[in-house]
């Protein structure tokens, strides 16, 4: 016990002295590296490493060091403790990461007090960036990337009625709200909806009900991974696909998940702010670097681009303000900034510090034996609809 403590204390002191003498900019990454959401952590890390490979590990001779911390799942208490640790023990200048909203929300108070800018690579609940002036988001919000889908479905898609199935958690509720609002506004009819508890594994009953409702389309919103794979398989196995009912989705049908779902998924329509098959030069660079570094199976997803752009924003800010950049300088730098992302042109909203970007509608197809998403519609620049509808909510 004593020895362990001595080692811990010693190591800390060592770290303290090196910090004082070298110009190293540390960026703490809080993400899910273990647990059911471990995919996110891996994708973040690979994207950051890919970015560093392309752009170098130093900026004007100053090293940028990433310090990874595993939050292990939806664990706000741990997320907060990790943020505190990164700020106090590692003396990071920036924090990044966060796949899940609760983990991102948990650090609001700490980063405000410590004035540490925090770049959100994925967590998609609208309210987050209002909780601290030091949040900047490079991913998306749920309502933002869903926004064009219901409108398109009811009009050009010619779907008159829809059934809405969402997971019973905050992002699911956001998704349900925007889908139903926009769909009805565009003249469509919602014939039924259900909220599915997060721990459900057998989706047959929900799909059965949706199939029996007479809806022409079923919209789903699930956490990516096992549940969304099961529900899409069930959709096909229950014959809804054969009946001609359209499946509308989002993050569930990112390219990384398609092989796991199988050919059942072909024809699924989804909206997303990033399509893996797009031909922007930044995307080609990202894909190429990932495959070079992590093998042929490395496929970028929304986590990858979120992390890539977040890292780029931090790099650019350090380039502009040097290694001693303050939190307020960073936020000022980020506000209103535009750049070309692998997903296309993006911008950070000058008021909300939230991302503004295009949204793409895609269809899953099989090309050269591979399941991929192919764009068929591109929206204009979309601001987060929730923030527009709730200008003063905190």
């Amino acid at each position, binding site marked *: 016990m004593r020895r362990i403590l001595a080692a811990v204390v010693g190591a800390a002191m060592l770290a303290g002295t090196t910090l004082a003498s070298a110009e190293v900019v540390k960026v703490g990454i809080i993400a899910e590296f273990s647990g059911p959401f471990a995919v996110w952590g891996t994708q973040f890390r690979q994207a950051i490493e890919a970015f560093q490979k392309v752009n170098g590990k130093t900026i004007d001779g100053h090293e940028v060091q990433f310090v990874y911390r595993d939050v292990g799942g939806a664990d706000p208490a741990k997320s907060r403790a990790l943020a505190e640790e990164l700020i106090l023990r590692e003396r990071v200048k920036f924090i990044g990461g966060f796949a899940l909203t609760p983990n991102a929300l948990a650090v609001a108070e700490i980063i405000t007090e410590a004035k540490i800018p925090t770049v959100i690579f994925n967590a998609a609940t609208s309210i987050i960036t209002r909780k601290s002036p030091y949040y900047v988001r490079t991913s998306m919000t749920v309502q933002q990337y869903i926004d064009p889908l219901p409108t398109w479905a009811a009009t050009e898609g010619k779907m008159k009625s829809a059934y809405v199935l969402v997971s019973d958690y905050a992002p699911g509720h956001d998704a349900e709200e925007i889908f139903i609002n926009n769909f009805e506004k565009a003249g469509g009819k919602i014939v039924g909806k259900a*909220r599915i*508890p997060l721990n459900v594994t057998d989706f047959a*009953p929900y799909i059965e009900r949706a199939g029996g409702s007479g809806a022409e389309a079923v919209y789903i919103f699930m956490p990516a991974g096992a549940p969304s794979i099961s529900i899409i398989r069930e959709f096909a*196995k*229950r014959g809804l696909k*054969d009946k001609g009912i359209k499946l509308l989705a989002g993050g569930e049908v990112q390219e990384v998940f398609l092989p*796991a*779902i*199988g050919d*059942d998924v072909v024809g699924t329509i989804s909206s997303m702010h990033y399509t893996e098959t797009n031909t922007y030069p930044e995307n080609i660079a990202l894909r190429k670097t990932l495959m070079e570094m992590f093998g042929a199976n490395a496929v970028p997803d929304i986590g990858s681009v979120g992390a890539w752009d977040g890292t780029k924003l931090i790099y650019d800010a350090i380039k502009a303000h040097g290694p001693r950049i303050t939190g307020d300088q960073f936020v000022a730098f980020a506000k209103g900034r535009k750049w070309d992302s692998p997903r296309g042109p993006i911008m950070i909203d000058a008021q909300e510090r939230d991302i503004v970007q295009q949204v793409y509608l895609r269809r899953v197809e099989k090309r050269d034996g591979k399941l991929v998403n192919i764009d068929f519609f591109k929206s204009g620049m979309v601001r987060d609809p929730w923030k527009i509808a709730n200008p003063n909510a905190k």
Partner: protein
Amino acid sequence: MLIFTILLDGIAYGMVLFIISVGLTVTMGLMRVVNLAHGAFAMLGGYLASVMIRHYGIPYVPAAFLAAIACGALGGVAELTIYRPLYRKGELAQVLLTFGLIFISIAAMTLIFGPRPIDESMPKWLEGLVDVGFRTYPTYRLFLIGVGAALALALWFIIERSLFGARLRAAVDDPGMARAVGINVNLLFTLTFVGGCALAGFGGAIGAGILPIDPFYALRYLVLFLVVVVIGGLGSFRGSLAAALAVGIIETAGKYLVPQLGSFLLWIIVFGLLLWRPNGLLPAKTAS
């Protein structure tokens, strides 16, 4: 018609639970080992079958059987090396060690196969729909019901009608007495454990369409398997069948009829049942 759909869905779900849990009920009843890591064998079966189908082109059903054999073999090794020293230890030690095995299995599967769920590997002939009179119904689920029923029948025959089964039942009732009348209990333990793990592997492989395989499988469904075993009564073959079907049907019915209750319903029922009958619905031992 809804009631028939609920029943079919519930039974298909219950059959998967049964195939995976029946091995656990026998080991918990016979060896008195609280084996939380049982689900890890089911998960392994799912992974192995998927690898065989996708990388070696082995057809679905033989792949499931081969996966079952591999899981059985591994179970045998585990019984001889890890579980045997556990029999003499208390429940707490058993809970913890097998909890540790779950952690190791999660880490190992993440390392080998990555954190994502594995790819779909269902054959074409299972994908369609079959007309069952009042509606069309997924072939896959009918297949699960059929396989489950066939396995239940085979197991019933082995346990109730064969010499091995007689010895097994005797040992579940009273291991000391079984030893005294000359049954090689150690061998019986190993064989049973192998059988239980093989069944779990098989269930994991063919049940992957309902319980998708990913590294967290063993932890995610652990409580579900335990509920089946404990509600059915430790060591009770009939009990585990009844409990698996009951859990399947109750969960399914809950989702159809009162979706807002979530898993409250199941837990409240489990809680009530265990208070009412701590030894399960159909306990194996007459004396409590």
